């Protein structure tokens, strides 16, 4: 697979993930789209790594994995807290702070 194709895949995936983030309503789903965005970016990193042969991007990818995991951990905790206190996970209903 040529390097450009990988890059395009990454961009397409990124865009789709972002679009999904912007359109879906369930907070858990949004969280997953956010992870998907990270992964799309990871693909780009990998693509560049493949192109240049350097290893740094791959390290970066690993770091992103780790970070994503930590983020998801904290994030899920917050979402659970939210679900417990507000009894909903629909993003349109959680808007007490505004204006």
């Amino acid at each position, binding site marked *: 697979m040529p390097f450009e194709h990988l*890059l395009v895949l*990454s961009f397409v995936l*990124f865009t789709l*993930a*972002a679009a999904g*983030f912007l359109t879906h309503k369930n*907070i858990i789903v*949004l*969280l997953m789209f*956010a*992870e998907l*965005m*990270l992964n*799309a*970016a*990871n693909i*780009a*990193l990998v*693509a*560049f790594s493949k*192109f*240049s042969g*350097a290893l*740094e*991007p791959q*390290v*970066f990818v690993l*770091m*992103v994995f780790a*970070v994503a995991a*930590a*983020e998801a951990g*904290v*994030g899920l*905790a*917050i*979402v659970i*807290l*939210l679900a417990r*206190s*507000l009894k909903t996970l629909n*993003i349109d209903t*959680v*808007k*007490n*702070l*505004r*204006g």
Partner: protein
Amino acid sequence: MNPEMAIYAGQSLAIPLTLVLAGLTALFIPIITRRDDSTPGLVILTSSLILLTFFPSSGTAFISMFSGALTLSPFTNYLWPFFLAALAFTALISLHARDGKPGSGEYYFLLSMAALGLIFMVSAGELLTIFIAVELLSVCLYALAAINRSPTGAEAGYKYFLLGSFGTGMLVMGFALVYGTTGTLNLDAIKLALAPGLPFHPLTSAGFIFLIAGFSFKVALVPFHMWVPDVYEGSPTPVSAFMGAAVKAGGIVVLYRLFAITAGAPQFREIFWALAVITMVLGNLMALPQHNLKRLLAYSSVSHAGYIVTGFFGGSEGLKAALFYLVVYAAATIGAFAVVAALEKDERGVMVKDLAGLSGRHPYLAAAMTLFILSLAGIPPLAGFFGKFYVFTAALRGGCTWLVVIALLMSAVSAYYYLRVLVAMYMEHEPAALEAAPSRAMGLALSLLALIVTALGIFSGPLLRLAQSAAIF
């Protein structure tokens, strides 16, 4: 590396390590002692105070460590103490505030880890370090925002988290693109790779845009600011103070590095120009009709981000001014949030009209708040004015006349909402809605901050000289 340098490097490295240790201590003490007291807070406070004494008065050395992942420089020598001081003040306020839940070790742990993230972020020499630091910071803040487990806290936390991870996605994409087109993660190398005078590769540009957007999000530049009011309002007040003062500073530093790297391309200057303008205009406009004091301060912090970005255009003078600004702005912001913390009953904070008659009941509290507010509004002889003056002077030197004119006009507009706070405190005499019993810790924090805000106004020279020595890249 000569021995002196080695000692310096060792000392410097000891700081983050000590911070980690202090954080862990704070985390575990309540578990071990099973006591619900203010020990963790005091641990963080004392350790950050001790660390503050570590800094040599003039750190002029440039030391690159871990193959460029971390860089020690006069720059970090200026900002690290700043973050530590911010941490200390936040801890001090938290000791008073009920949000701080004296026993909650994890609160102070998270706080110190966030500070650690900031410390790494400003000393990063590589994109990767920046990324890790940002995530360390962000993850801690997500948790801090929701640490009270209250509905508003949860909402603030989820919003921050959701948007933050969205932003993280953007950031990683930006990192990927910048790396892919320049072939390096090292910031200095990236600057070298971008041949001056030549237009950027489109993907490079796109990568920087992603990065700028991502850090604009952290700094709260319009239109990436929208999480700020909600999160500041919903988070525990000391956390809001920390976010407003320290986190913003970290973001600004990274944003400045991005600015410096891309400065060769006129479009990027235009982008920063436009971001600064709309941030100042919209931030101030939206602050005008706010009634919730925390929210008002949140919008005010948005607009201040705009002022600081204005300073970018002044070259190293601008950086110096921005560094100065960060300190005085942080002092006033932490102070103002501290007053809120002293008065508030729940984490939604205090309405402006609740302040009515405060001057009668708590004259010192009101006086301190007056100083913070006037400093934020940029009225001489308080420090805020000098911050603005230096920043705008630098920007004018950079040739951004219109930017400065807009900034000045907007700061006059901002006087309206700042003054409304004073109006409520001094000129309205409705019966008291809020009773406060500021603790000794709070009193100490407020008096120190008030002193800083006043003294840095009339005697801005020393700090400015420090900032000058720091403003070298």
